[in-house]
């Protein structure tokens, strides 16, 4: 009976498997392409080489763009995680009447189309001289990352047993002490996932970077976008493969963080 049911659903399984493949296969296909010896990205590659990785590592411009992106992503990660954690804590513990409105504003960067945020930021930053500066990019990316950080850490705060905090406070700990010694250790995995998401939000961000960064301060994504617009440059296959590897590492880390969180929640 069970077998019959599975057989009857076979076509459904086939469709689902094809859709799952559609989601992942195109991305996976880039990896062998990046090791191609050919200038044309034919599949399968006619021969293998590391020339595109050499081209990437040998290019001052690509290296510079990579460092720009890494620095901005790291700063965004630190800023968004700290500010996001403060906000989550304040929203969760404060229970102000304004909480709903505050939360709505925090979600704005995730809801407004990126192109509109980019235009607005460009016009305002032009007035205050923040276009094409690290500060401008970090501020914009932090705004983009904040909704995700607040959602992630906020959900951890909802699940947390705040009697522990109260116990620490009744024993004389200040709110800050109680947070550092009691609350944070229980939530560090959620902070870690929030930080990872903030990092990737910045590192992968394209549209705002296209608008407000250029020249020496062009981000990796801005340079990639410009290159892709002109032609299919095989160097990008190598860079894309590195980015995919990066995403895999961050995804595995965040799954490990989620496991750690769940283990804590149940243990």
């Amino acid at each position, binding site marked *: 009976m069970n077998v019959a049911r599975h057989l009857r659903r076979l076509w459904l399984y086939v469709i689902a498997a094809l859709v799952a493949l559609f989601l992942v296969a195109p*991305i996976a296909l880039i990896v062998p392409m990046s090791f191609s010896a050919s200038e044309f990205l034919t599949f399968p590659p006619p021969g293998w080489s590391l020339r595109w990785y050499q081209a990437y590592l040998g290019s001052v411009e690509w290296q510079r763009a990579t460092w720009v992106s890494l620095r901005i992503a790291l700063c965004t990660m630190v800023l968004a995680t700290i500010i996001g954690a*403060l906000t989550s*804590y304040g929203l969760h513990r404060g229970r102000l009447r304004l909480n709903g409105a505050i939360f709505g504003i925090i979600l704005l960067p995730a809801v407004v189309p990126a192109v509109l945020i980019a235009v*607005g*930021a460009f*016009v305002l930053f032009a007035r205050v001289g923040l276009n094409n500066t690290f500060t401008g990019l970090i501020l914009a990316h932090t705004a983009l990352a904040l909704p995700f950080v607040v959602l992630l850490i906020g959900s951890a705060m909802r699940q947390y047993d705040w009697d522990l905090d109260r116990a620490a406070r009744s024993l004389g700990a200040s709110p800050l002490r109680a947070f550092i010694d009691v609350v944070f250790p229980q939530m560090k995995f959620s902070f870690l996932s929030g930080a990872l998401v903030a990092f990737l939000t910045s590192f992968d961000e394209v549209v705002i970077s296209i608008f407000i960064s250029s020249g020496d301060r062009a981000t990796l994504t801005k340079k990639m976008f410009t290159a892709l617009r002109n032609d299919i440059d095989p160097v990008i296959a190598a860079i894309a493969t590195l980015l995919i590897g990066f*995403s895999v590492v961050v995804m595995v880390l965040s799954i490990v963080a989620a496991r750690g969180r769940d283990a804590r929640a149940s243990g």
Partner: protein
Amino acid sequence: MMQPKPDNALAIERIARREAASLGALSLPALLIIAFVVLVPGIWLIGYSFWGRGGLTLDNFAQLFDASYARSMIVTLQLAGLVTLLCALLGYPLSYVLLLAGPRMRAFLFCFVLFPLWTSVLVRTYAWQIILQRRGIVNGFLIWLGVIETPLPLANGFGAAVTGMVHVMLPFLIMPLFASMKAIDPALTRAAASLGASPTRAFWSVFAPMSVPGLLSGMIIVFVLALGFYVTPALLGGGRVITWAMRIEQSLMTSSDWGTTAALGVALVVVAGLILALMGRVGGLHRALGAEK
């Protein structure tokens, strides 16, 4: 009847109130950054859109009623509509199988949905450029099949933009759809089966209608995201697909025309809002019909 509160209680209340205020202040840094990057520029843009050489004016909007802008809006709506429809068609079966699967299989399949989300949009768009290009895998396959003799220019145009965007948007449909499917009580389908409904009939008359709200909310998310999408159509459209977002970019970066840019932005928000309101009404109507039965 009320007794005067002892001093202690008053003091505690005062401390609690002061603490609530300082806790509220913790949101300030986040609010300031978002106000600076999103809110203030947004309000400023709205102001700009009504501002011309001679002061307050509607000229910026008037010039949008032009054939070329109309074409862009139609292309944008077609693109977003088609992408939404395809996402629904592809996402529904996968969400349903995710629901049917055991915990291990579900976790495995979920990796396929989440992995693209962790990958840069640029990388995903590049993947389709490679696949659809002249010497790409699709053209190679079609030539091998003998369907075509010379490679087709697949990588540039409406079809490529649709394909790339479906790939980018699909996870945003599957996540809310799966969440709403999971909330449907499985006992209802079982009850239908025990009353003699065939599995097909139980699915179509019990499960499917209950999954419609989740499907609709996923489709609304995809549609709104697709309306303002820039990167994928700009790279895969090959200059033939000029979406609204691309017009916005052009008018700011090429023409440096802030008034028109602002009006284009306001128009995008208004159109998205109108469509959302319309969908909400249709969705509400649907729920009302469901409640009547």
